[in-house]
């Protein structure tokens, strides 16, 4: 990926990528960008709950996952809640997660995609174990785990990395260094120019001028300008790609809201394969 950044300011196509790849990368970034923009709108409308924005993180998520095969596994944090979209996970499913509906929890086995991990860094050992376990079976599978800069302060991060190194497990660790662990400044690769989540008020800790500068350099705009210079996209392609993503989101929120409210019975189901008899005592 370090190869691509300088190329975005020039006119050449990076080695190993062709026009088809560039268009597909663009389509995926637009899909994620529109998901994120719509999610913020739905939150303000009260149609989804507290939501963790990933605006301007699309390049990292799309770029890193583009190198994977379908058989490789992804372990997302909540910042990568919608990364499954690049694999065809329905956006309605991710919206349901943020709506607190049980159908938002996909089966990892179905998408080779771990559940959204809320407790910071605790999914790093999961990814290490999956990569190690696949290697033990002789399967050619890589695990890619996404986490933020703040996660590198957690013990679980270090334990997972160490274990993967000791077992020589094929684990790829993607540190999304957006310079913020909610409100603690850490050193950087890019800059989170939006709140940590919809419940966060960044005016308490940010430098507004810096935010404005970063917003002008945001990744989707840069990529689009680059593709235009290469004549890979034009106004027509840009508009059609955007519209397809918006149509997908419209259909997604409709599907999510059309799903019936969960049956309270679900409280008792699925905690055990073989439940103890007294589960309903309370």
């Amino acid at each position, binding site marked *: 990926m370090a190869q691509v950044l300088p190329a975005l300011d020039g006119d050449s196509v990076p080695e190993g990528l062709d026009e088809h790849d560039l268009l597909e990368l663009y389509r995926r970034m637009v899909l994620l960008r529109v998901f994120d923009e719509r999610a913020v709108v739905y939150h303000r409308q009260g149609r989804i709950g507290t939501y963790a924005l990933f605006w301007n993180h699309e390049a990292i998520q799309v770029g890193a996952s583009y190198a994977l095969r379908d058989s490789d*596994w992804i372990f997302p944090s909540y910042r990568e809640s919608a990364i499954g979209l690049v694999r065809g996970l329905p956006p309605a499913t991710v919206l349901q997660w943020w709506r607190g509906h*049980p159908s938002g*929890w*996909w*089966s*990892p*086995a*179905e998408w080779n995609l*771990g*559940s959204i991990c*809320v*407790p910071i860094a*605790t*999914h*790093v*050992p*999961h*990814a*290490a*174990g*999956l*990569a*190690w*376990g*696949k290697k*033990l*079976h002789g*399967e050619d*599978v890589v*695990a890619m785990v996404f986490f933020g800069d703040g996660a590198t302060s957690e*013990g*679980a991060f270090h*334990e*997972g990395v*160490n*274990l993967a190194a*000791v077992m020589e497990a094929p684990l790829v660790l993607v540190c999304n260094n957006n310079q913020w662990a909610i409100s603690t400044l850490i050193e950087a690769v890019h800059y989170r120019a939006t709140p940590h989540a919809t419940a966060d008020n960044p005016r308490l800790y940010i430098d507004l001028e810096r935010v404005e500068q970063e917003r002008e350099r945001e990744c989707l705009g840069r990529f689009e300008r680059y593709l235009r210079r290469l004549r890979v996209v034009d106004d027509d392609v840009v508009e059609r790609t955007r519209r397809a993503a918006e149509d997908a989101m419209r259909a997604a929120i409709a599907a999510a809201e059309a799903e019936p409210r969960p049956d309270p019975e*679900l409280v008792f*189901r*699925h*905690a*055990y*394969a*073989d*439940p*103890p*008899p*007294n589960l309903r005592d309370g």
Partner: protein
Amino acid sequence: MAELSLVEAVNDALHTELARDGSVLVLGEDVGRAGGVFRATAGLQQRFGRDRCVDTPLAEAGFLGAAVGLCMAGWRPVCEMQYDAFSYPCLDQLITHVGRYRWRTRGRMDFPITIRMPYGGGVRAPELHEDSPEAYYVHTPGIKVAVPATPADAKGLLSAAIRDPDPVVVFEPKLHYRAPRGEVPAGEHVVPLGRGRVARVGDDVTLLAYGAMVAVCERAAEAADASCEVVDIRSLRPLDEEAILGSVAKTGRVVIVHEAPRTAGFGAELAALVAEKAMLDLRAPVVRVTGYDVPFPHWQIEDAYLPSVERVLAAVDRVAAY
């Protein structure tokens, strides 16, 4: 049948289950080349190889978290925590993931993890080597808990735990790791979870216990004037309510014994169960004999902390005289 110690029975279970099911994988600190600090995993790495009995880095949270990933990759991990209190770093992974992941997937993925550890006191060890942490585990939704008191049950319950599709934690009473020996069935031997065992039949007082406290209750029952029935709980979750309530219906008097500290210990759960479901059978208050609400003491005075035969007899007298 063979006469084995409890830890030999654990070893026997592991050999049997690893031979039976190629997806079973043992992992933990010093379990492989060294065969475990208590020899519980002796011979496994030599027989099944370094990929089936794995020496992990010193990282309980790390390797329990890795066990979650191993399950996703199709393995059936059996994690050893070297000592009871050394398991505490893994509680984050246990509570936030091990007990929840199946539920997150709405039943579409299983996480058949077994955690086993030596637990309990009376062995003259430094701090954090003699704890009784079962309450933290049984309180965690999605987790099952078993506590054997005999060598045969150590093999049987561990085998059941390994075969269970759900995460199961097995607490092995280290005080009895090497003695007494007991008869242990050879070959495959499974004691299903959710079944208690009447260790001694009696009519006047029910003694409910698990782990090393079963033997303490048996000695108290021998010495008591009252006729005491000793019920070995064996499985904290799922709990054999029928066996417990059946005994209470017969005697009407209950004494609960555990090493763990009193407040919010598993004895409180048993007392609440009896009070709710056997109120009209009771002829005396439910009494608990437990560790105190203090850190496990320096071992020179551990005998003053652990439930003793004398303290159990005092409780028996109290409920019998009511």
